[in-house]
C-alpha cells in the first residue's frame, strides 16, 4: 500500500486544493436533502391533516452525505490528474545531463538502461530541454572532450556511442566536466549507475556527485548490485592445471557459476564450476589440463555472464613454452640439491614444458628455448649448430658457473672476464651483494625485487659501450646479473651467476621463476618489432558484453614499455592488440585491484530503480469510480424515494453491472496483437510475391507498398515472373521465408530487433533469402555516417553477413535481365554494396544482402492509375526506366541465381555444340 502511495502523484496538484471546499459541500448537502419524487394526489386533504404530526425530517441520511462527499472528492482527484508511478523528472526546466555508467559492469541490465536513457531523452525532448548524454566509460579522446547537447536527430535515433565498453567507468571525468556543468543554467543530473566501484576511491566518487548535487538535483538510477558480473581474474598456471580466480562485488549469499575454456574456433575445451560460499568475495577453482590442451585455450568465459569482465583472453603468454634442458654431464649420483638440473626444472616447470636431452638433439627438435647450465666449452660443431638455431629465432639461456668462468665461448651476450668475482669469502672484505634496480629497458622492469636475494659470486662482463643496453638485471653495485643480446632473430641470455645455490640465492627465489616467465614472453615476439612499433594496434576488441566487436580499429595502445605493465587506468578496452607476429591480450581481469559496491544509499539525490514502472494514469479509473458512485447515488435517491422495487431494482442492478463491466473492459482493452493468420500464410505461399518490412513510419510504408506494387507490375509485363501484390511484413511477427526478395527501407527510428527476429532473419538469409536494404538518404553526404546508416549498421551487426563489396562490374546483377552498370533509384548515383559471394557456397551464389541509398521504392512507386508517384532526381524517363530495370534485374537475380552468370560461356558452349 505504501508502495502504491509513493508511486502516486498528480499532474496538476493544485486542483487538490478544491478538496478544502468539501466541508462547505457537507454543509450545502445537509441543507438540501435529495429531491423527493413528485406525486400528484387528489386526496391531499387527508395528508395535510396528517402532515402536522409526521414532521418530514429534511436531513439527508449520513451515508448518502458521505457518498456524495466521496463523489465530489473523487471528481476533484480525477481533475488533478492522478498518475501512478509518474516518472519523477522535472525538478527543473534546465538542461538535463544524463551520466551513464557504460563500463563492463553495467552490462547485466544494459537493455533496461538503454530503454531508460531513451525514455528519459524522449521525455526531455517533449519538454524542450537540452540533453547531454555523457558516457562515463570512454576510450576516445574526442568523446572525452566533447560536451555538447544532443541534436534533435540524435535524440530520435539510438545513440551509437552509448554502448557498454570493456572499460571501467571513469567517474573522475565528472571533475573535469565540472566547469562545463557550472556554465549550465540550473542543470539537472541523472546518473544511470551500475553501483560498482573499480579501482576507485568511494569517497572521491561521492565527493564528485556531491558537487553535482550542489549544481542541481541529482537522480540516481541503479539496478540490483547482485547483477554485477563476476569478474574473472588472470588464471595462475600450475604444472598441469590452471587455477582460476573469480571475484564478485558483494557478499550476497552463496552463488555458483561455470567457467568455460574455449579454443580459437569457440569449441569448449573445459568446463569448471565454481562456488562462492556465503561470505566469500573471491573464490578459486582449479582445472586440470594437459599442456597440449592448455596451449589451445584462447579464452576463458563465465557461462551466461554477458560482460567483458567475465571473459579472459589468453594470448601467447599463456601458452606453455617448451624449453630444452640440456642434460647435465654431471654424474647421476650428484645429490639433487646440488644439481643445476634440479633447480632449473623446478623454476621452469610453472611456465614451460621441459624436454631433457642432449644439446644436439635439442637443437634438432628446435624448441623456443634452450637452457644451458654451466658448461665449459662447446665443440665447434655444437657451437655452430646452436648459433644457427639462435639466429633462426631460438633463445638460449645460459647460466654461469665455475666451468664457464674459465672458458671462452662465442655464445655469450657479453665478453666475460676470466675467472669469477667472489663477493663473499674468507679472503674478501666484500659482502654478498643484493640486487639493484631493474634497468628500464629490461623485460624484468616491472618485477618486484626481493631484497633477500644475495649473490656471492658472479662472472663479470668486460666493459663495453653497449653493456648497459644489454643488461637486464643488475646487482646493487651496478655489475650485471643478467645480460642479453640479440643474435639474428634469436637471443642469447646469460645469468651471471650459477643455476645452483653455490653462487647465489637467486634460484631459490620466486623472482627467478618470474624472470623465466618474462623470458618466456620473448619466445614468440622479437624485440625488434617492439622497438620499431611504438603502438600496438587493436586487432579485435571486446565490447562491454564480452563479445568481439570486430570494429574497433580506431583504438590502439601507444608506447607500451612492456605489455604486462600496461597502466590500468588508461582507457584501453579489453581485447587483442598487436600485430601479426605478436598478439597481446589486454584483459579487464588484469587491471582490477578492487571490485566493490558503491554505497549509493549515502549519495545525495533521489534514488530510483532502473525499471521505471509503467506510468499509469489513474484519471480514467477515478472518473469511472466517480461515475459508479453517481450511479449508486441515483439508485440511493431512488431508494429513498421508494421507487426501487422488484423489477426496477433488478433492471438497475443489471444496468449497474453492465456499466461496470464495460468500463472495466474499456479500461483494460489493448490492441490484440495480430497473429500470423492462415489466410496470410496462404497468400504469401500460393503466389510469388515480394515483401517489404514495415517501419512504423506510415509514409515510408506507403511508399514501399506502392513501389513494390509498381515493380511487380513491371515484372509481370516484361518477364515471366508472375509477381502478385506485395505483402507487408512485420519483422517481429511475420514469417519471412516465403519471399524471394524483401525490401527493407531503413529509418533512423527503426525499432530494435528482438533476438527472435534476428534468428528469423538469419535463418531467412541462410536459406537463400535476399534483403534489399535501402537507407533512402543519398541527399545526405555519407551513407554510413547518416542516422539511417548508423541504425542500419546496428542492425547488420547482429546478422550473419559476409563481407560486403561494391557491386563489381561483372556481377550477375548487372546482366541478370538487362545489361546495366548503374543502379539508379530515386537518386541517380551512389554506391550499391552487395554481399561478396565469391567464395561462398550454397544459395546459388546469390547475395543475401544488398545495401544502397537510392530510394528505389520511390522510383518504382506508381499510383492506382499507373502514374509514378515520386519524382526521380535529377529526373528523366531514362532514370526511371533504369530503376525499373534494376528492379527487374534484382528480382531475376534472386530468383534465377547465378544461372545468368553462366551465359557468358554461351558462345563457347555453342561453338562446342558445333553450331
Amino acid at each position, binding site marked *: 500500500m505504501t508502495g502504491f502511495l509513493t508511486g502516486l502523484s498528480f499532474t496538476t496538484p493544485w486542483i487538490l486544493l478544491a478538496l478544502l471546499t468539501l466541508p462547505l459541500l457537507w454543509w450545502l448537502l445537509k441543507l438540501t436533502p435529495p429531491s*423527493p419524487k413528485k406525486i400528484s*394526489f*387528489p386526496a*391531499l386533504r387527508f*395528508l395535510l391533516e396528517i402532515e402536522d404530526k409526521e414532521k418530514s*425530517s429534511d436531513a439527508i441520511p449520513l451515508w448518502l452525505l458521505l457518498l456524495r462527499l466521496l463523489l465530489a472528492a473523487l471528481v476533484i482527484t480525477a481533475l488533478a490528474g492522478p498518475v501512478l508511478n509518474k516518472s519523477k523528472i522535472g525538478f527543473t526546466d534546465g538542461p538535463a545531463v544524463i551520466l551513464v555508467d557504460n563500463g563492463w559492469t553495467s552490462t547485466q541490465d544494459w537493455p533496461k538502461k538503454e530503454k531508460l536513457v531513451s525514455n528519459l531523452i524522449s521525455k526531455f525532448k517533449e519538454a524542450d530541454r537540452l540533453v547531454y548524454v555523457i558516457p562515463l566509460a570512454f576510450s576516445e579522446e574526442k568523446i572525452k572532450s566533447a560536451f555538447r547537447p544532443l541534436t534533435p536527430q540524435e535524440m530520435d535515433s539510438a545513440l551509437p556511442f552509448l554502448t557498454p565498453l570493456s572499460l571501467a567507468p571513469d567517474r573522475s571525468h565528472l571533475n573535469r566536466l565540472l566547469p562545463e556543468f557550472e556554465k549550465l543554467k540550473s542543470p539537472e543530473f541523472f546518473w544511470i549507475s551500475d553501483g560498482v566501484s573499480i579501482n576507485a576511491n568511494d569517497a572521491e566518487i561521492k565527493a564528485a556527485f556531491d558537487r553535482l548535487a550542489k549544481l542541481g538535483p541529482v537522480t540516481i538510477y541503479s539496478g540490483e548490485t547482485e547483477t554485477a558480473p563476476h569478474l574473472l581474474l588472470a588464471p595462475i598456471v600450475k604444472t598441469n592445471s590452471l587455477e582460476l580466480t573469480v571475484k564478485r562485488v558483494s557478499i550476497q549469499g552463496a552463488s555458483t557459476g561455470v567457467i568455460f575454456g574455449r579454443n580459437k574456433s569457440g569449441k569448449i575445451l573445459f568446463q569448471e564450476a565454481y562456488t562462492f560460499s556465503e561470505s566469500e568475495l573471491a573464490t578459486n577453482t582449479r582445472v586440470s589440463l594437459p599442456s597440449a590442451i592448455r596451449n589451445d585455450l584462447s579464452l576463458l568465459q563465465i557461462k551466461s555472464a554477458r560482460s567483458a569482465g567475465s571473459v579472459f583472453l589468453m594470448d601467447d603468454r599463456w601458452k606453455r613454452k617448451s624449453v630444452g634442458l640440456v642434460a647435465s654431464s654431471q654424474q647421476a649420483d650428484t645429490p639433487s640439491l646440488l644439481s643445476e638440473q634440479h633447480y632449473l626444472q623446478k623454476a621452469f616447470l610453472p611456465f614451460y614444458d621441459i624436454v631433457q636431452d642432449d644439446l644436439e638433439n635439442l637443437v634438432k627438435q628446435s624448441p623456443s628455448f634452450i637452457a644451458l647450465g654451466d658448461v665449459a666449452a662447446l665443440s665447434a660443431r655444437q657451437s655452430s649448430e646452436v648459433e644457427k638455431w639462435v639466429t633462426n629465432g631460438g633463445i638460449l639461456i645460459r647460466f654461469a658457473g665455475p666451468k664457464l668462468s674459465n672458458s671462452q665461448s662465442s655464445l655469450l651476450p657479453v665478453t666475460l672476464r676470466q675467472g669469477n668475482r667472489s663477493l663473499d669469502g674468507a679472503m674478501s672484505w666484500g659482502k654478498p651483494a643484493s640486487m639493484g634496480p631493474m634497468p628500464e629497458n629490461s623485460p624484468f622492469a616491472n618485477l618486484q625485487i626481493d631484497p633477500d636475494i644475495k649473490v656471492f659470486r658472479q662472472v663479470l662482463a668486460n666493459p663495453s659501450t653497449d653493456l648497459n643496453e644489454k643488461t637486464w638485471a643488475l646487482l646493487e653495485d651496478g655489475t650485471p646479473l643478467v645480460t642479453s643480446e640479440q643474435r639474428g632473430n634469436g637471443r642469447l641470455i646469460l645469468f651471471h651467476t650459477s643455476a645452483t645455490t653455490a653462487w647465489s640465492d637467486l634460484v631459490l627465489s620466486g623472482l627467478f621463476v618470474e624472470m623465466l616467465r618474462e623470458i618466456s614472453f620473448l619466445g614468440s615476439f622479437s624485440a625488434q618489432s617492439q622497438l620499431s612499433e611504438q603502438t600496438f594496434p587493436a586487432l579485435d576488441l571486446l565490447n562491454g558484453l564480452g563479445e568481439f566487436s570486430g570494429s574497433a580499429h580506431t583504438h590502439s595502445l601507444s608506447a607500451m614499455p612492456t605489455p604486462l605493465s600496461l597502466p590500468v587506468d588508461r582507457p584501453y578496452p579489453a581485447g587483442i592488440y598487436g600485430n601479426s607476429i605478436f598478439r597481446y591480450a589486454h584483459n579487464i581481469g588484469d587491471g582490477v585491484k578492487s571490485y566493490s559496491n558503491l554505497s549509493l544509499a549515502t549519495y545525495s539525490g533521489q534514488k530510483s530503480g532502473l525499471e521505471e514502472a509503467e506510468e499509469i494514469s489513474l484519471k480514467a479509473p477515478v472518473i469511472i469510480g466517480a461515475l459508479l458512485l453517481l450511479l449508486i447515488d441515483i439508485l440511493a435517491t431512488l431508494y*429513498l*424515494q421508494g421507487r426501487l422495487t422488484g423489477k426496477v431494482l433488478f433492471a438497475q442492478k443489471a444496468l449497474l453491472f453492465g456499466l461496470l463491466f464495460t468500463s472495466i473492459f474499456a479500461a483494460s482493452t489493448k490492441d490484440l496483437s495480430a497473429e500470423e493468420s492462415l489466410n496470410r500464410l496462404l497468400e504469401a505461399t500460393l503466389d510469388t510475391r515480394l515483401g517489404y518490412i514495415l517501419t512504423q513510419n506510415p509514409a515510408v510504408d506507403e511508399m514501399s507498398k506502392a513501389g513494390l506494387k509498381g515493380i511487380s507490375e513491371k515484372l509481370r509485363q516484361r518477364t515471366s515472373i508472375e509477381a502478385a501484390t506485395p505483402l507487408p511484413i512485420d519483422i517481429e511477427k511475420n514469417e519471412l521465408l516465403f519471399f524471394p526478395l524483401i525490401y527493407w527501407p531503413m529509418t533512423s527510428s527503426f525499432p530494435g530487433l528482438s533476438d527472435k527476429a534476428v534468428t528469423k532473419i538469419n535463418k531467412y538469409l541462410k536459406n537463400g533469402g535476399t534483403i534489399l536494404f535501402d537507407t533512402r538518404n543519398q541527399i545526405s553526404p555519407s551513407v554510413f555516417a547518416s542516422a539511417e546508416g548508423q541504425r542500419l549498421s546496428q542492425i547488420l551487426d547482429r546478422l550473419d553477413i559476409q563481407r560486403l563489396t561494391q557491386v563489381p562490374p561483372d556481377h550477375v546483377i548487372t546482366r541478370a535481365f538487362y545489361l546495366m552498370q548503374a543502379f539508379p533509384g530515386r537518386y541517380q548515383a551512389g554506391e550499391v554494396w552487395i554481399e561478396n559471394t565469391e567464395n561462398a557456397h550454397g544459395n546459388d551464389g546469390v547475395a543475401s544482402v544488398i545495401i544502397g541509398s537510392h530510394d528505389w521504392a520511390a522510383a518504382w512507386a506508381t499510383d492506382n492509375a499507373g502514374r509514378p508517384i515520386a519524382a526521380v532526381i535529377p529526373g528523366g524517363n531514362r532514370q526511371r526506366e533504369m530503376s525499373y530495370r534494376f528492379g527487374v534485374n534484382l528480382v531475376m537475380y534472386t530468383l534465377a541465381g547465378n544461372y545468368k552468370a553462366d551465359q557468358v560461356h554461351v558462345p563457347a558452349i555453342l561453338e562446342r555444340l558445333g553450331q
Partner: protein
Amino acid sequence: MDVSKEIDVEYISMRTDAEALSHQLPALRLQAQQLVKTLNTGTHGRRKAGAGEDFWQFRSYNTQDAASNIDWRQSARQDQLYIRQQELETAETVWFWVDHTMNMAFKSQKHLPFKVEAACILSLATGLLLVKGGENFGAVSKEAKASHGPASFERFAHEIISSPVPFQKLTSLLPVRSKSRFILVSDFLYDRKDLETVFDYITSLGREAVLVHIADPVEITFPFEGRAEFKGLDSSLSVTLNKSEAVREEYLQRFENHRNWLRETASRRDWTYCFHSTSQSAGQTLSTIYFSLQEEKN
C-alpha cells in the same frame, strides 16, 4: 382575492377539461352502451299507456271512453273507432351531477380511466338505462331541462360531459321541481361543512339523492413508499413526506372515516351511497345505482 373569482378560474379549467372530455364523447357513449348491454335490467320500464306526451298505441273505442279521445283520422281509415293513447309519463325526474373538479381528472395508472371518466360513464350508462325505461332525466346545469326518450339522451350526454357545475353552485342550480331525484357522482373531497350544506339543501327540498363516491385505487390503498412530495391537483399545496409508508395507516384511517361519514350521512337521510373504485368494473356500480332507483320507485 375572493372566493367567487377562485371558483371562476376553477370553473374555466373545469370547462376546458370537460371539453377535452367531450371529444371522447362517442367513446364514452360506446363504453356506456357496452356497459348497459351487460346489464340485464329485468324490468322494462314503463311501457304502458298512460298520461304522457308521446304516442303509445291505438285502441278500440269503448263506451267508457270520452268522445274527445277518439282519433278521428285513424278511425276514418277503418270502420271502427280508435282511441289514441299516449304513453304514460312519470312525473319523477332523475337529475345527474358529475363532479368536474381537477381532483377528478386523475388516474394513477395508465390503464385506468380518469375518475371523471368513470363518473361520466356511470352517469351516461345510467342515463341510457333510464332512456330504456322511459324515465325523465337530465343533467344539472344552468338551463336544467329534463326530458325522456333517446333524443334527449344526446343533449343529456353533452351536458353531462361538457357543462360542468361546481359543487358549491348546486344549491342554486338544483331544479326545484317536484318528484326529482339526484345522482351526485363525485369523489366528495370537500369540506364536510360544504357537503352538509348541499345535502341539507336537497333534504330541505324533500328530495332524495344517490351518492356515487368515485375513488382511484391509490386513494384507497395509499401504496406509496419513501420520500415523496404529494401535490394536490386543485391547488398548489403540497406535502413532503420522508417516509410515505409511515403515514399509510393514518391516511387509510382518514379515508375510511370519510367514506363512513358519507355512508352514514346517506343512510341517515335514507339516501343511497355507493362507492366506486376506478379499477373495479363499472357494471357493479351501475347496477347498484340503477336498482337503487328502481327500489325507490317501487
